[in-house]
């Protein structure tokens, strides 16, 4: 093949693929979310398609930064995006997401008032995010290693668990966890040195750092760890779906809470479909099925939580007012803070050597 032909062919292929990628069908809803996080459950997308005629096309991200970049570089491609409330502010400021007409979402009225009116999601009386689920980064234990579940975060430092502790390989989470362990506000860490000292003394206890649910579950399945930081929804999934001996512990010192919400990107080609999808995601019927079949965090929809059995973990424990008092919701953090946290975390990991 001569060169010009080949160039022409390559250009043609490139144009064709990008055209295909951007040719969003009117009745398609392009959803951007973490993988395996509710919105891509096959039974759920099937039910939604049957009910509304909109076909769900899922795309995934591996970090909040990646999600933001995907929104910036593909304007008009996505119709629904799942954003941690702590990042909603940034997405709005960069004009990546648009205000949502909540009157189109029948289920919006049932969302708990404190979540729906969160200043992280509502700016100038306009709603930029519909609260979906919330959960905790708390502790989870291997039931085989404990006769009675611990109540304090100090358990992580107990020499009895030396080499059998795990913590997520994430700078922000590690620093916020250190803040709780030293009795500080996770969103306003005053004494960074105390956090550093506390985490330094935790390092020798650690078996390995986990980065995915699968890592955690594997280590419990092969009985390699006793205790570690874990997400509440994941602990529920480990127990319900994978039948592992895992229990979530909300230490008396507190836990990090996060709120996940759905937003509609600027330039969405199917706003009506997006509204229908978000409404379906906060629907009690979907939520109960998600919890029963797979395991999930706590819905922001009060009716959805009430639809769970009375003794369900997400209703009984997570709904306990005493728990609500000691958890701290993550607020947005600045790039400078993020960098400082990362530098501290890397230093800690290198000093282990």
């Amino acid at each position, binding site marked *: 093949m001569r060169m010009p032909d080949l160039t022409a062919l390559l250009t043609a292929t490139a144009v064709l693929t990008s055209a295909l990628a951007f040719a969003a069908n009117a009745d398609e809803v392009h959803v951007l979310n973490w993988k395996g996080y509710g919105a891509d459950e096959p039974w759920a997308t099937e039910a939604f398609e049957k009910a509304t005629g909109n076909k769900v096309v899922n795309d995934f991200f591996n970090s909040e930064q990646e999600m933001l970049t995907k929104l*910036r570089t593909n304007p008009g491609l996505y119709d629904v995006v799942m954003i941690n409330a702590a990042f909603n502010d940034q997405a709005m400021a960069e004009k990546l997401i648009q205000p949502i007409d909540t009157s189109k979402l029948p289920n919006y009225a049932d969302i708990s008032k404190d979540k729906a009116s969160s200043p992280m999601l509502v700016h100038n009386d306009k709603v930029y995010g519909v609260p979906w689920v919330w959960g905790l980064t708390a502790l989870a234990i291997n039931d085989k290693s404990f006769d009675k579940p611990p109540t304090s975060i100090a358990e992580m430092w107990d020499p009895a668990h030396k080499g059998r502790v795990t913590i997520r390989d994430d700078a922000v989470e590690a620093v916020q966890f250190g803040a709780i362990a030293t009795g500080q506000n996770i969103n306003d860490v005053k004494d960074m040195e105390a956090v550093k000292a506390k985490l330094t003394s935790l390092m020798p206890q*650690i078996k390995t*750092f986990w980065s995915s649910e699968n890592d955690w579950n594997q280590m419990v399945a092969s009985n390699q760890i006793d205790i570690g930081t874990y997400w509440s929804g994941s602990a529920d999934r480990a127990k319900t779906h994978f039948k592992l001996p895992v229990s979530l512990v909300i230490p008396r010192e507190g836990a990090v809470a996060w709120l996940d919400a759905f937003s509609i990107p600027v330039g969405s080609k199917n706003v009506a479909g997006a509204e229908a999808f978000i409404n379906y995601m906060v629907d009690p019927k979907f939520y109960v099925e998600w919890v029963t079949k797979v395991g999930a965090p706590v819905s922001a929809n009060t009716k959805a939580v009430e639809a769970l059995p009375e003794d369900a973990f997400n209703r009984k424990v997570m709904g306990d007012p005493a728990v609500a008092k000691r958890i701290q919701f993550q607020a947005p953090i600045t790039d400078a803070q993020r960098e400082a946290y990362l530098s501290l975390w890397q230093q800690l990991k290198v000093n282990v050597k």
Partner: protein
Amino acid sequence: MAAQVAAASRSGLRSALPLLAPAYLWLTVAIFLPLSAMVFFSLMTELPLSGKPWAFTLENYTAFFSQSLYLTLLLASLRLGLEVTLWCIIVGYPAAYVLAKVLKGRSREAIFLLVILPFWSNGLVRIFSWAMVLREGGILDTALNAVLPFKINIDLMYSYPAVIIGLVHSYVPYMVLTCYLTLQAIDDSLIEAGRSLGASRLQMLKRVIIPLSMPGLVAGAALIFVPVVGSFMEPRILGGRTGTFYGTVIEDQFVAVFNWPLGAALSFILLAVVLVILAVASPVLRRAM
């Protein structure tokens, strides 16, 4: 006359062009363009994709020197590269010798196949199978305790040795293959001549076999050392809390914090260090070749 030669070589180039074009086109598209883009990124304050204002800066390169962290990690990675290369020589060279000089026919093919077999499986699958073997209560631990009369506790998982084991396993075939090729090329009559002149086995090895197979050893070592220094998957999965290396920090910059400029700058510093090492070693290598 000279003009004729030049014309001939030019027409030689012209007729070779269709053969060269696919490879060079591919290299340009798949390697040169992304690498140039990375050089460009490494000099920026922000990714242009992020929509934020950006400017040119050398800050990403100075970041390497402003914190002892990166240098510590780079040295750790270089040490890892040397150790893995050394173990690959210890394990791979004798195997290559046996394949080239001792075994013949069917048995050679069979053993050869076993050496290449790991290449046919996915790298991640190999690492996860090591994880099953090395952990406490894993395959190695259980098997040894079933055979041995006393109780031993083997828990190599999440440790530095585990990283070495995983990497040696991944890269040893390179050493076997390169050494096999040069060892096989050694004329048997040279070995017979040495023997008949009274050389001991050790002398034969030192004076004839190793010098003649040096090109294979050097090529194998370079093929192994360079990727191991930048490796991140094996340390991350097998190394546990000791698994932080230069490669894993670069991966973090790209995947976890999305700081591509810093990640790119760190990668190019690694590339520069590896090139310096190869340049310094090249007189020695050339003599060996």
